[in-house]
């Protein structure tokens, strides 16, 4: 058995996490790299991020027709193990057709709107802030539009606040930029 502290208090069990992740693989990929458009990749996500999202799906603050029923049976240990497992998986960039002009504009916007303050340089994520680099285009678009509309669940309000000044065209450009970051598929 491999146990890691994983920064989440109670020691998580990576082997158990891998086993428990088998039911997640159909949508999120065996190694946490999803291929279905609109479904986020979990590989390389910070353990705090994944764990908090699972908690929010379970208590109803975050809602999704597929995730909401799925998480109801998860125990605290299940959530810790799954989060620890996905953090150790290597993220790959999702396939995506780049619009170079939007990428440049998106980089400018990411800069002006301080995305790296929480999501780190390279938007690789940390603690409760998600890894964004190379994430699925449709998923990022849906989430950012949701934060702007104040309908997406936000752990502490930071994303809702951050997206208010953005126009929809700016959100699209930001997502073009973010989706091009990270390792090639």
């Amino acid at each position, binding site marked *: 058995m491999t146990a890691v502290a994983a920064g989440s208090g109670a020691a998580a069990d990576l082997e158990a996490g891998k086993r428990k992740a088998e039911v997640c693989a159909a949508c999120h990929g065996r190694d946490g790299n999803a291929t279905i458009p609109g479904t986020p990749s979990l590989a390389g996500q910070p353990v705090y991020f994944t764990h908090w999202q699972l908690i929010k799906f379970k208590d109803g603050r975050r809602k999704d027709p597929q995730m909401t029923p799925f998480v109801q049976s998860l125990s605290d240990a299940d*959530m810790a193990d799954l989060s620890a497992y996905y953090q150790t998986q290597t993220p790959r960039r999702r396939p995506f057709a780049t619009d170079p002009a939007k990428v440049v504009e998106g980089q400018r916007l990411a800069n002006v709107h301080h995305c790296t303050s929480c999501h780190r340089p390279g938007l690789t994520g940390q603690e409760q802030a998600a890894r964004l680099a190379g994430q699925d285009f449709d998923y990022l678009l849906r989430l950012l539009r949701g934060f702007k509309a104040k309908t997406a669940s936000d752990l502490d*309000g930071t994303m809702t606040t951050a997206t208010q000044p953005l126009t929809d065209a700016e959100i699209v450009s930001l997502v073009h930029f973010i989706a091009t970051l990270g390792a090639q598929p």
Partner: protein
Amino acid sequence: MRLIPSRLWPSLLAVSLLAVVLGVGLVTTPPASGQAPPPWKQGQPADMANSPLAPIAQPPSPKAPGEIPIAKIKVPPGFKVELWAHGINNARAMTWGDKGTLFVSSRVAGNVYAVVDKGGQREVKMIAKGLNQPNGVAFKDGTLYVAEISRITKMPGIEDKLDNPPAMEVVYDILPRDLPHGWKYLAFGPDGKLYFNIGAPCNICIPPDTHANISRVNADGSGFEYFAHGVRNSVGFDWHPVTKELYFATHARDWLGEDVPSDRFDHAPRKGLHFGFPYCHQGDIPDPEFGKGRSCAEFAAPLIKTGPHVAGNGVEFYTGSMFPPEYQNRAFLAQRGSWNRTKKIGFRVMMVTLRPGDVPKYDVFAEGWLDGDNVWGRPVYTKQMKDGSLLIADDYAGAIYRITYKP
């Protein structure tokens, strides 16, 4: 020096992109400080844009008992520390039910818990979940009151229905929805009114007239009014057992320096005082931006400067009989600890002895959650038990400690 994008993107900028990005930035990009950064970063000076300082992340799960080194907690001679309850994710404020149930709030975990003492064993029940940062809990006449970001609700008769909690009934729900400093401490004052904070929705700004205050409302939701103004964010207060006057802790602004401004412990003997935010900090430092044209003499000065960035949360006057006589009417201040300071400070419970005609005495009561530079716990609120012992909630470890005294 002009703030340019490359300062924020050191690891991202491909050399070939540099000219393009700089071109765009210089033509159309205002300085980054002109846009709204995340609240915690707001007010950060340009020359600190690359500072590694950031708020300490809240773990998503509580620590197991074996991971909570209570032996590291130091208390005065004769006092003893025990782990009273654990497994309470993000445990924050505490209030007692009439029948001996301890109700415990949380913030980002979104839960309210009931802890039932079963003679040496504590059973933790979740009585509400998925709430919007329900930091405030208060109890009166069989009813639990809960404060979330923008509303106060109640659960009548909750102590008889812990396994089947009643629906939450709205008491007052027209509070601001801002999330920064929107979470609330909630307590009944000696006048029977519910008191709570409406924090400044920023690190530093001219807040709307509706924010940066301590407010109160009747338990039936009527009679809302502001009580204290110019309070950046107070998430802990109590009333003196003898004078019945309000004392409160306030978190001071960030990014002004390692050692300034100090957090505050304040006294509000009457309604309507202004405590200086955002014009004046710690009673004697005008804000470099918003203090222009104002004077610190206009505002109520702090009773105690409690230390820079210490994050003073819980305030509670001791009225029990277990601790030595000199502890009567002392205030315990729980300080959750700093993030906006290179050398960490706080992570302790202080005590204040008020002295008529003299400055208050301010001493350490319990410390040790900061171990070198490593944070393993964050004391956030205290609550006296019936027998005079003292509970301390730790939201980082998801635990509650009990301090007892034996001569």
